[in-house]
């Protein structure tokens, strides 16, 4: 009897991936494709025991659901996700000991499916636990620590992606910071323009009828095209007033393009949040003698805040991803590492840029979800 269909589906996918897909790929050098290595070849003891928590995950779909089972599932799933990393790192080290320094070991498709299944099982368990914000932070931090442990302990150093990291050690941190700076620099004008525009659009319907179609159209322009379109006018502007410090490449077009993309979710959610404030509440506040400014600050703002915050979450997650494309116009950041990898046909270098972008987006998403939860209301 299947009691948890989500876990059952994940278990089936994981077993199929473990049996049929390569766990690792071993290539004689950075350019050639790897020879596939199945999970079974990497499972020699004692490190093979790292996949043992997987046994619980195979049994869990058939157990009666409850908090105890959910908690054990979260624990087993995180341990498995971490164990798979350890296993890959250890086998890579073993392969490296008897190969030329140019040889590369990369994650195979089987690894990715197994890792994704384990992490999704953990998320399913956390959802079922229905934790309050504080314990949720504790569980999340614990899981993150367990997953980062093999990396921090140097267990993964012989994997190709970390060899790429070793070559870029002194620019990697700068790239991450730069990525954050691009997103943050776009956030300021987005809020300064977007919030008043949202309020205005909600109060004056005529403004909304103009603003939303325009922002919708902006949203449909492909990002590379928008960056390209900004190059010419900004370069012209820079030529006309060289003293302004404007230029057609680098941070300027990146910030302007990201701001244009970010306006829609912010403006829409500010307007939607204010729309959601019940008219009787406003009338009651007026009846109590509040001035219009007081009604806005003490009634509208607090009640619209959760909807606004979920708009901010969408905006930031979108901006973290879009900022990667800004590398094509010389803005730097993690996108620059991704494009170097694409140019050199080095997939692990692409991953070195892409994985931190994903982690950054997940972190931003989690932090703002938590902020919404702490406000004690569910987002619209």
């Amino acid at each position: 009897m299947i009691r948890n269909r989500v876990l059952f589906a994940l278990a089936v996918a994981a077993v199929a991936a473990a049996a049929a897909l390569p766990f690792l790929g071993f290539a004689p050098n950075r350019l050639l494709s790897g020879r596939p290595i199945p999970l079974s070849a990497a499972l020699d003891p004692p490190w093979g025991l790292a996949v043992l928590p997987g046994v619980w995950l195979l049994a869990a779909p058939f157990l009666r659901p409850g908090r105890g089972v959910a908690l054990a599932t979260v624990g087993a799933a995180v341990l498995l996700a971490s164990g798979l990393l350890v296993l890959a790192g250890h086998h890579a080290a073993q392969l490296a000991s008897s190969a030329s320094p140019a040889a590369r070991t990369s994650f195979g498709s089987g690894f990715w499916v197994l890792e994704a299944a384990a992490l999704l099982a953990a998320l399913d368990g956390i959802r079922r636990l229905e934790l309050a914000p504080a314990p949720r932070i504790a569980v999340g931090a614990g899981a993150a620590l367990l997953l980062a442990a093999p990396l921090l302990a140097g267990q993964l150093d012989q994997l190709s992606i970390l060899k790429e990291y070793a070559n870029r050690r002194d620019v990697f941190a700068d790239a991450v910071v730069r990525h954050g700076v691009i997103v943050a620099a776009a956030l300021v004008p987005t809020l300064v323009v977007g919030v008043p525009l949202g309020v205005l659009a909600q109060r004056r319907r005529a403004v909304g009828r103009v603003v939303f179609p325009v922002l919708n159209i902006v949203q449909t322009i492909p990002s590379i095209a928008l960056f390209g379109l900004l190059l010419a006018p900004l370069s012209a502007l820079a030529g006309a007033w060289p003293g302004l410090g404007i230029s057609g490449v680098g941070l300027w077009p990146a910030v302007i393009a990201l701001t244009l993309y970010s306006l829609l979710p912010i403006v829409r959610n500010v307007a939607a949040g204010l729309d959601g404030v019940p008219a009787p509440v406003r009338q009651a506040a007026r009846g109590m003698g509040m001035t219009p400014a007081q009604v806005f600050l003490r009634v509208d703002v607090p009640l619209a805040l959760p909807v606004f915050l979920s708009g901010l979450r969408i905006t930031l997650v979108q901006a973290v991803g879009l900022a990667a494309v800004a590398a094509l116009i010389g803005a730097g950041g993690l996108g620059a590492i991704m494009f170097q990898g694409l140019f050199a046909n080095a997939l692990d270098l692409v991953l070195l840029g892409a994985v931190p972008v994903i982690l950054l987006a997940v972190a931003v998403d989690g932090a703002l979800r938590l902020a919404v939860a702490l406000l004690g209301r569910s987002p619209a």
Partner: protein
Amino acid sequence: MRTVIAFMLGLLLAGGGAQAADAVRVGSKLDSESGLLGTMILQMLEANGIPTENRIQLGPTKIVRSALLAGEIDIYPEYTGNGAFFFNIDSDPVWKNAGAGYEKVRQLDREKNNVVWLKPAPANNTWAIAVRKDVASPNGLASMEDFAKWVSGGGKAKIAASAEFVESPAALPSFQGTYGFTLKPEQILVLAGGDTAATIRAAAEGTSGVNTAMVYGTDGAISALDLVVMADTKGAQMVYEPAPTVRAAVLDKHPKIKDALEPVFASLDAGTLRTLNARISVEGQDVKQVATAYLKSKGFLK
């Protein structure tokens, strides 16, 4: 609203102004050879006591070139043949001659943009055709003339190339016209994106029966993966030699740049660049270590 605009302008101005005042900003394109040459420039300037700012692997050609012209960066390595496209005169035969092409672009860029081209490396990183060694050796293929004769005589060549290489009149059509051969559509595998790392890999691994690849003359992977370049004996291709391009104002301020860089670039012939590129793209060594090791071995760095 006015305060909002003033605030935004202030913010962006502060961002734009936050640059080291005196440092020479060294840029490069995204590919690994450009990264290597940019790193060598950076290390040589530092060794000569010139303060630098690292803008290596800034973006694709269009971005890096606009950044130089806009004064966003001060120096980066560029290929002589690209002058044909910067000045929109790609039909001019001058680009097929190394010396004349360099003179042309040196003059034009100095007059129109105040950009100085230092002496290029004697290494032609132009489009070329390379064949698997196990195909080239038994058929005696060493030059494009051999290749054309082989293909016209029914040789089973199958080339992996980018769409640009296949379609641009300056690339494959120029080879076919100059040497008198035609590759049938089923003998051409167009790879999306189509960088030479992908085409060389396809030939080395024999993907879809590919035995020939579009390459660049100084690609590191060519000999590492057992391919043989067909010599362009009749000069069908434009010459692309890498040279430092620097803003004249910066060169005037730091005249040492010229003496520091020209002997380094003069030492980089095609074979040397191929070996260095292979260390980066095939063996996966660190660009900075490869640059330092080379500069030290030649005595440019102590």
